[in-house]
């Protein structure tokens, strides 16, 4: 679905990333894991067409993103930003309904059908009770669920998430992860997400989803592959400069649960 060929991006004279190539198929998850400032967000914004590559290309269904308009990209890709500055106290429903913008023409407002889709998406992430609240008064976790609902309302085959679980408590974090699992399984959603929690990759693998982890470091992907192969203790040491243990727990139903436990910063 998405194909990236030798993509490079510079900000002023500084290379943010260079020579990145990868491919994501429909119904797959790609977790991009890497330390702060490694260029994850910039790469995501290039895939969304917000930033323009300096060289290389990004193809959606074999069409170069450069030749696509905002509306054409937004029909394929929805986006959950890492930071959302709240300005006016819109209600939750007013925010989520913006996900329908791409399906409307220039001068129209949302229809009854759009409102129904919005209400359905609010139910999917379990925030239907909040729909008339000003979203400026919500907690960070609830706000993130609003962004997820808005992305779902866009009804795209691909959702890009930039740290979708930052600032979330366990409950809200699991709601986000469970919603992703459900959508990948039921409608074949494709997900690209940047995350600081490599355990999320294990979560998806533990749930039997097709997932790849891309380790992003030093402006490139050092390795891309299945979580249990890529997320080993050696790689975590190189990526985050930490000592960590990958542990495995046998669940009652016989399935295996893998998790990373960070132990200490490496003695250099």
């Amino acid at each position, binding site marked *: 679905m998405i194909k990236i060929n030798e993509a490079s991006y510079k900000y002023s004279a500084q290379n943010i990333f260079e020579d990145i190539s990868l491919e994501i198929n429909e119904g797959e998850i790609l977790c991009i894991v890497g330390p702060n400032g490694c260029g994850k967000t910039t790469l995501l*914004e290039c895939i*969304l*067409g*917000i930033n323009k590559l300096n060289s290389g290309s990004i193809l959606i269904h074999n069409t170069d993103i450069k030749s696509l*308009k*905002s*509306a054409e*990209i*937004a*029909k394929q*890709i*929805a*986006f959950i*930003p890492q930071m*959302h*500055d709240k*300005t*006016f*106290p*819109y*209600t939750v429903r*007013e925010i989520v309904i*913006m*996900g329908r*913008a*791409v399906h409307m023409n*220039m*001068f*129209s*407002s*949302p229809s009854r059908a759009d409102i129904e889709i919005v209400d359905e998406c609010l139910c999917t992430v379990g925030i239907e009770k909040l729909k008339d609240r*000003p979203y*400026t*008064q919500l907690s960070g976790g609830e706000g993130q669920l609003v962004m997820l609902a*808005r992305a779902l309302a*866009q009804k795209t085959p691909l959702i890009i998430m930039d740290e979708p679980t930052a600032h979330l408590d366990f409950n809200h974090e699991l709601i986000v992860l469970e919603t992703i699992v459900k959508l990948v399984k039921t409608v074949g959603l494709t997900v690209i997400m940047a995350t600081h929690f490599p355990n999320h990759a294990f979560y998806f693998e533990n749930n039997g989803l097709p997932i790849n982890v891309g380790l992003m470091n030093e402006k490139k992907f050092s390795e891309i592959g299945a979580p249990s192969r890529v997320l080993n203790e050696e790689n975590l040491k190189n990526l985050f400069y930490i000592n960590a243990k990958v542990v495995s727990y046998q669940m009652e139903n016989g399935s295996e649960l893998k998790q990373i436990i960070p132990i200490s910063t490496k003695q250099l």
Partner: protein
Amino acid sequence: MNKRIIRVLLIISPIIFIVSSLFIGRYPITVHDVISVLWSKLTFTPSSLPDEIVSIVWDIRMPRALLGALVGGALAISGASFQGLFRNPLVSAGILGVSQGAGFGAALAILLFGTSSYIYIFAFIFGGSAVLLSYLIGRVYKTTPTIMLVLGGTIISSIFTALISFAKYVADPADQLQSIVFWLMGSLASVRYEDILIAVIPIGIGVSGLIAMRWRINVLSMGDKEAHSLGIDPALNKGIIVICTTLATAGAVCVSGIIGWVGLIIPHIARMIVGNDNRILIPASLALGACFLIFVDNLGRIITGAEMPIGILTALVGGPFFVYLLKSTKGGGW
């Protein structure tokens, strides 16, 4: 409040204000006479009333109320649109320098030609050019980041403010200076139907455009990146909205002079009453702005008798009202 009731109120309240302003003024006219004049004008039959009554109702008070509605509505709707577009509730209709540009255009026309209809043309052209210049300054990075646009507007405003001061400095104190100062304070007095015809075209185009685009302003207020990822091209849509607001504001300013406050505070009052969704906020600002300016103009006629510039009264009347609303609605969720 029920949405349908609000909608009906929005449509009929400006009409009520326009009609009731026909009764208000130093020359007392009865309800019956006003209705009779209106009836004769609307049915194109000659009126049996004395000419002076017909003239006061139809040629003096009516155009003044209509222009008040047009100007107030245009300034308020532009302010509301810009607040959404710039994601900043402190922005007013004049943020890109349209008022200062128009003010300088008017001053220049007064210097060159005296009081004439060149004032309209110059005010409109310079108001529009000021916005264009601000926009070009904002585009230095080939995109139009909001903060650069605001900065561009600030720079252009201050340049035109300096030019206005220069025009005052060189103006003949006997007559030109007075005209310039009075124009800058804004006025709806001595308006004729021709003035309304001049104003109604740009205001009509601008206001219709903003009403058509009003829901998109919600999406644009999410910021450029999010608007793009939601499928709304930020540069294109911002451009259209800037053009619409400029047409509306320049159309208003060129016939009425600079009337402050309406384009900043009326959208806030509307926010407190109907909420922040631009689908309802934009038409609500239009209606409230129209009502407010007619109201203030009438108040000026009643209490001062003399023609006090309306720009002074808008702030004096609007300020306390705003504080009252702020207290009674607790700010509406800010």
